[in-house]
């Protein structure tokens, strides 16, 4: 190492550059197992590792991992422990929401935006907003569809709010739990490069549900084709965010199991959106008008022939 002043702090860079300058020195690197392949000096790895570098983020994640280890030190029965899960600023929440709306191929949502600072603010309030958005939009859409009918009496359908809340919160918390358990189990069998903590999975799922809020509001439009196109768009965006997040975590595994996991994730997501559409929004019965205009024509035609 270069001669330094005794009292001045000097950045020594990270492990690879130090190893390059002084290959015989012993270095201690504190990093999670997901980072180790990056530091192996293997030139013959091929393009797979470059892809890893992009997906795993840049060198800053080392420092944030260290800092994250120093952050959460309060025991779980104190209030400060839970405050660490709400340690986000406004612009960070907006960035994460933006990241869930614009899935860039090759960029991992967790590494890029969450970076070992998973928050519970986003998942909780996005789910709460989604619950009320679905319930209110469903109610409004049913009202607009049945507007002209004589026998229709408007009811606010308040019971559906609790049903929506149960469905959305169960999806946002139980599916990540199951997925996390599954990934932990596979990790014990196959050495995976990337492993996510439970809160990071909850975070990804919570932010990926954001696209459904404008979708639910647009579902008020009583056209079947419009609704299904919206389902496809929303599923495409949030499904791709989820798939790109979890693909590095299962890629090292058996081909079949990794494909089955990704398919299952997308399938459950689709089940949620289609189920909500079917349950909360009545089918738009647009065949009222054509039959009303068809029958007078038929009666006129019948009168002509007779």
């Amino acid at each position, binding site marked *: 190492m270069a001669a330094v002043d005794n009292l001045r702090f000097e950045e020594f860079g990270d492990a690879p550059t130090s190893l390059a300058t002084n290959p015989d020195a012993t270095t201690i690197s504190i990093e999670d197992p997901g980072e180790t392949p990056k530091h192996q000096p293997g030139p013959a790895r091929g393009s797979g590792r470059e892809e890893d570098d992009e997906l795993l983020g840049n060198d800053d994640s080392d420092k944030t991992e260290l800092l994250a280890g120093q952050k959460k030190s309060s025991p779980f029965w104190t209030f400060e422990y839970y405050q660490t899960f709400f340690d986000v600023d*406004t612009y960070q*929440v907006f960035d994460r929401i933006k990241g869930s709306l614009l899935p860039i191929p090759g960029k991992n949502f967790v590494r890029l935006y969450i970076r070992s600072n998973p928050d519970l603010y986003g998942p909780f309030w996005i789910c709460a907003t989604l619950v009320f958005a679905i319930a209110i939009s469903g109610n409004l859409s049913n009202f607009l569809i049945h507007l002209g009918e004589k026998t229709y009496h408007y009811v*606010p359908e*308040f019971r559906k709010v609790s049903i929506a809340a149960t469905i959305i919160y169960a999806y946002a918390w139980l599916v990540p739990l199951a997925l996390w358990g599954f990934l932990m189990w596979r990790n014990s069998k196959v050495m995976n490069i990337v492993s996510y903590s439970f809160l990071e999975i909850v975070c990804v799922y919570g932010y990926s549900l954001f696209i459904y809020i404008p979708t639910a509001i647009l579902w008020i439009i009583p056209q079947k084709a419009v609704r299904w196109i919206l389902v496809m768009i929303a599923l495409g965006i949030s499904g791709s965010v989820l798939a790109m997040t979890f693909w590095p975590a299962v890629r090292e595994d058996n081909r079949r199991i990794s494909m089955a996991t990704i398919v299952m994730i997308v399938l459950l997501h689709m089940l949620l959106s289609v189920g909500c559409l079917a349950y909360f929004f009545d089918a738009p019965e647009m065949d009222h008008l054509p039959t009303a205009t068809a029958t007078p024509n038929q009666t006129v035609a019948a009168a002509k022939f007779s």
Partner: protein
Amino acid sequence: MAEVAESPGDPGTASPRPLFAGLSDISISQDIPIEGEITIPMRSRSREFDSSTLNESVQNTIMRDLKAVGKKFMHVLYPRKSNTLLRDWDLWGPLILCVTLALMLQRGSVDSEKDGGPQFAEVFVIVWFGAVTITLNSKLLGGNISFFQSLCVLGYCILPLTVAMLICRLVLLAEPGPINFMVRLFVVIVMFAWSIVASTAFLADSQPPNRKALAVYPVFLFYFVISWMILTFTPQ
């Protein structure tokens, strides 16, 4: 003038001196008057001890609490940046408002088999658990407002929406139609905006500046849900 013999704090001395060793060397001359009162001048507390509220008439007690509640209602209706709501919080006002709102919003038990509006308990739970959730959220984000102060502010700021409910109830006595709905919509929107302005006037200052929007958004959602329940109320 007080003379203080300073003990040398030089780390270079050979013998380590015990802590507070130099204190005995301090001498205070007779010129400084050190008499005075050691009682804490909290007048209000001494007044309370003199005339305990146990012996006053019931009318006095009730009128005092009602006046406090009424004063806070005025603060909500004309929101200025004052600390009255925060300093002397009480939960009487929120309770009265919540019970009034829930009584007016509940559907009759006649059509319990149809899916209708909320029951009394549902409105009550939504208001109180919503307020508790927002308070917890605000505290977890690092706000320096106490739990009950926040509950007090959120509860008192339901007052404009309760007024909107009363007006909607009166408007619904007239003939139904689109004009009826437009009037109710306008009233609810105005009162919703009033509630938001009133509560953010009190709550926004307690948050760090880079998290204000994060703390205010749940308040917006809370009053929006209550406004929706008021707007969609249909008498049976």
